[in-house]
């Protein structure tokens, strides 16, 4: 090797050694270690590279690889601190020694041969060359010799490669002045190798110094660690005892402190949280496991966060910077105009929000504006927004009817049929977002009804129940009489004023008392198939061509009932029909009822019988139902097969609806279920599409089925799914789920 290069090497090494600062030392150690690593890197990977058939002459590759390898080494060992690095290099040195010698010896032989054969023209020759002396020495090994040989070998290699590596380093980090010089030197490398020994020892000496420093550092570290305060989440809790032990105080104090420390020691072992959890749960091992897992996770997190912090550093904007940014944004983008904002606001929140004052209650009571009205108002918006609005399946002039209207008002049907007849009208749920105006009530007229009833389309609609009008003193079926005492036309239902009642009272029309008294208040009558009510005086039984039978009752007041009916049956039963109530008991004991022996309270059954004074009970259906206990109601519901409900009101509601639907014929206990089935069968037969699916054995989605049936008869919603499935099984309907 050229003297110049050797000197340069020495200078570099000395430079590294001159700095006494620990940090610098660390840095230098780092660099030296890096160099070492690179050297190691070159040594080992060359062996590796031979396996990979990388051209050893390709020094560029090797240097790169060496760097890569060193980096890998670095990363693999999680270099965060110098001692770790030191350790790894030590380890690496130790571990690789044995492997390296054999490999290197072989490798070097090969390389030597190669180089000799190929000549010395290549730049930056990274071939490992062992001088003859060493080679000979390598053949008769002793332990000491081996070590020396190792070192020497290493040194040789390092030496040979050092300048290469230094060069590469220099190329990377320093001036590239050396290149020219280096190029000149390559030719001399081989020849001068035999003279390297004395150079090696110098370098070796330097390396030894470094290693001593490393050792010192590590020992210092370990001693420092002893004085470290133990922390709860630190993994080195095992050392805590030692640490605490080393703290030596005065005996009295130490005892106290020992106690404290023991306590705290215990705490360290079992943290407060742990203790509490243990106490609470009682499962010590489980708690321990949980907490240890948690600790590990946190430790990992902290590790990860630390590494991430090390790897990535990012900054957040401070206030001033944000202000600047916002300014820039405002300049860049045009401002939104007021009215556009308002439009968006209205679209989201609706217009009435502005109208309503801060009074939340009123705001909730005001009906929502109908969408189509909005649309009409604003053509511009129509085009813009309409496609975004939900599909509005309803024709715009179909209106929602309240229950009371349905119950009380004849005009409802009239109103309905004045609207388009082709489309299928749905009664909207009040929970829908879209809003419809409530139909204003109108006074009924007989003639209208009769006309209306001849419509075939009545077939499609469920039986509309109309109880008779009020007593004589009250006007005939006026909306205002039957609706709650609120200002209905505002559409505001003010529950604070009065309780909301669909109708004022529900009394059975069936009672002969009433009939005799010719004073009939409200009536609740099931929409049975047969005519349910007929007065003695009343003989006009309007049997229309349709399935609907209506009865006009009373002299003054008119009661109309619309229901599905079998005309044939009705006719068979003759005109003079009088309604009788017959109740049946569901469950044996009647102790709860007002003991009317003639009454067997239960679900309504209405039997039509000619002109006999009945011993009908005094109670109305509803009263009977309401008077039954929860238990009985539940049982009733179960026998019929209705959905189980929790609140009594709901159960009563369900049962009353059921009663409206049931036939007037003999209803035994066992047949009530069958009544439900029959009802369902009838419903299906009225929906041709569904019917076809069924008789062609096409599987029907159960949700579809239920929804279609419910559309035609809301009673279906009360029926339990199990009942529906049973009915489907009986009928041979194949059901499937979504």
């Amino acid at each position, binding site marked *: 090797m050229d003297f110049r290069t050797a000197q340069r090497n020495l200078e570099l090494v000395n430079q590294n050694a001159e700095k006494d600062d620990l940090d610098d030392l660390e840095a230098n150690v780092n660099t030296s270690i890096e160099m070492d690593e690179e050297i190691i890197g070159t040594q080992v990977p060359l062996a590796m590279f031979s396996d990979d058939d990388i051209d050893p002459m390709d020094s560029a590759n090797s240097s790169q690889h060496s760097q890569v390898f060193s980096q890998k080494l670095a990363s693999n060992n999680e270099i965060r601190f110098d001692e770790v690095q030191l350790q790894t290099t030590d380890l690496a040195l130790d571990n690789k020694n044995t492997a390296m010698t054999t490999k290197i010896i072989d490798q070097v032989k090969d390389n030597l041969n190669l180089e000799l054969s190929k000549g010395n023209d290549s730049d930056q020759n990274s071939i490992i060359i062992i001088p003859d002396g060493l080679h000979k020495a390598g053949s008769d090994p002793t332990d000491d010799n081996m070590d020396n040989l190792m070192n020497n070998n290493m040194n040789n290699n390092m030496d040979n490669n050092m300048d290469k590596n230094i060069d590469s380093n220099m190329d990377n980090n320093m001036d590239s002045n050396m290149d020219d010089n280096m190029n000149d030197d390559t030719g001399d490398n081989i020849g001068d190798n035999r003279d390297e020994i004395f150079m090696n020892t110098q370098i070796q000496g330097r390396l030894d110094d470094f290693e001593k420093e490393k050792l010192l550092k590590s020992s210092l570290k370990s001693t420092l660690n002893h004085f470290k305060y133990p922390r709860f989440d630190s993994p080195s809790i095992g050392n805590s005892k030692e640490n605490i032990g080393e703290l030596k105080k005065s005996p009295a104090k130490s005892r106290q402190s020992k106690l404290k420390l023991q306590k705290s020691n215990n705490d360290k072992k079992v943290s407060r949280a742990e203790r509490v959890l243990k106490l609470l749960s009682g499962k010590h091992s489980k708690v321990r496991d949980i907490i240890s897992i948690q600790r590990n996770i946190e430790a990992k997190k902290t590790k990860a966060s630390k590494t991430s912090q090390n790897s990535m550093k990012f900054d957040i904007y401070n206030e001033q910077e944000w202000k600047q940014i916002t300014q820039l944004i405002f300049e860049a983008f045009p401002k939104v105009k007021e009215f556009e904002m308002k439009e968006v606001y209205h679209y989201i929140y609706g217009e009435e929000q502005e109208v309503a004052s801060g009074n939340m209650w009123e705001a909730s009571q005001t009906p929502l504006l109908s969408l189509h009205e909005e649309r009409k108002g604003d053509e511009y918006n129509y085009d813009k927004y309409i496609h975004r609005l939900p599909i509005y399946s309803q024709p715009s002039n179909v209106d929602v009817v309240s229950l009371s209207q349905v119950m009380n008002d004849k005009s409802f049907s009239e109103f309905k049929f004045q609207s388009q007849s082709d489309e299928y009208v749905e009664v909207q749920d009040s929970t829908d977002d879209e809003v419809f105006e409530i139909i204003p009530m109108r006074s009924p007229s007989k003639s209208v009804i009769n006309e209306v009833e001849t419509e075939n389309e009545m077939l499609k609609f469920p039986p509309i129940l109309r109880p008779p009008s009020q007593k004589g003193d009250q006007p005939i079926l006026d909306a205002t009489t039957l609706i709650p005492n609120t200002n209905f036309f505002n559409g505001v239902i003010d529950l604070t004023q009065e309780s909301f009642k669909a109708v004022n009272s529900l009394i059975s029309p069936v009672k002969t008392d009433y009939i005799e008294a010719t004073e009939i208040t409200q009536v609740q009558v099931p929409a049975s198939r047969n005519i349910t009510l007929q007065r003695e005086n009343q003989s006009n039984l309007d049997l229309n061509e349709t399935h609907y039978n209506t009865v006009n009752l009373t002299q003054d007041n008119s009661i109309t009932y619309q229901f599905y009916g079998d005309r044939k049956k009705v006719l068979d039963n003759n005109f003079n029909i009088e309604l009788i109530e017959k109740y049946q008991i569901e469950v044996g004991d009647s102790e709860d009822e007002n003991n009317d022996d003639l009454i067997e309270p239960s679900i309504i059954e209405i039997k039509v019988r000619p002109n006999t004074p009945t011993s009908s009970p005094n109670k109305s259906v509803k009263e009977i139902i309401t008077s039954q206990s929860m238990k009985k109601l539940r049982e009733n519901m179960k026998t019929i097969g209705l959905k189980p409900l929790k609140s009594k009101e709901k159960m009563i509601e369900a049962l009353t609806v059921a009663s409206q639907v049931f036939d007037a014929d003999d209803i035994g206990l066992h047949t009530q279920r069958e009544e439900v089935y029959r009802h369902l069968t009838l419903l299906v037969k009225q929906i041709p599409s569904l019917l076809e699916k069924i008789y062609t054995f096409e599987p029907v989605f159960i949700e579809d089925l239920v929804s279609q049936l419910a559309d035609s008869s809301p009673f279906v919603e009360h029926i339990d799914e199990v009942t529906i499935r049973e009915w489907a*099984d009986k009928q041979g309907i194949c059901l499937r789920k979504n």
Partner: protein
Amino acid sequence: MSQSPSPSDDQIVSSQTRKRTYPTLYCCYLLQSIAKRRSFYIGSTPHPVRRLRQHNGILSRGGAYRTKRDGTRPWEMIVVVYGFPNKIAAYQYEHAWQHAYSTHFIAKDERIVSNKTAGRTLHHKLGVIRQLMNNEYFQHMNLNVHFFNSDILEMWDANKFDLTITDLEDDQITLSQQSQNIPNVLEADDIINISDKNLQLVTEFYDKIIQKEMYSKDIYKEKLIYGSRTCQICSKKYDYTSEDDDLKPYILFCPNKECDFESHLSCLYAKCMSSSDNEARIIPISCHCSSCNISFNWTKYIEIATLIKSLDK
């Protein structure tokens, strides 16, 4: 499921292009291991031959994992229940058969299989067939049972649990023409022979059904290819050669080959439901042909109607 719009005329419902529901053959089968006579397997398939081969490992694709167990292969298909109108019904039957101890199709007090581990004998398996066929849901479908082995049929006839099937007709229980007797001591050759024979029988069975359908298809095609035809009940026309779906509702021809009757399915349905007191029923049990007056099962008409419907694809 698409709904057809509410029709102006009740009788003719414009049926959308629906997938054919009534499959040619969908069956539930019972396998018995030839070597291990106490091992059974219940499954369902539209193609019993293919399925059997999958079970026996002749065809590699197709799962059949549970029948891969050592010592059980090869399997013999001993009973087949067929005639299901759709896949769902077959699945339900299969599930009920496999879980006879808890299915809702068999009433609790009538169960012959009491729990999971019980009911492993062939008698039980056959008994469950009876029970399920007796159930009102499956009764609508007019299922048939076919045996491939006369020994098994004997056991069926023995009816160990004394179960009766209501309205069971003779032609519902069938047996392959050549069934085989399985000797008590089996050797390797025997096993293979039995397996092959069984496969052969199953193939015969399947082919027969397919051929029948092919034959019917051809006949109907011939009839329909003429174009517009009229319903003999309502006198309205339909045309299966047209592109318009409205002109292609469900129609049927009389199953009787000598009878020329044809009509809308809906017309026949209406007629059927009006004449007898089928008020409580949606699906009728059987129906008389208007012209030849022979009564056929409703399912038969549906088979025909769905077959015709599938022709226009």
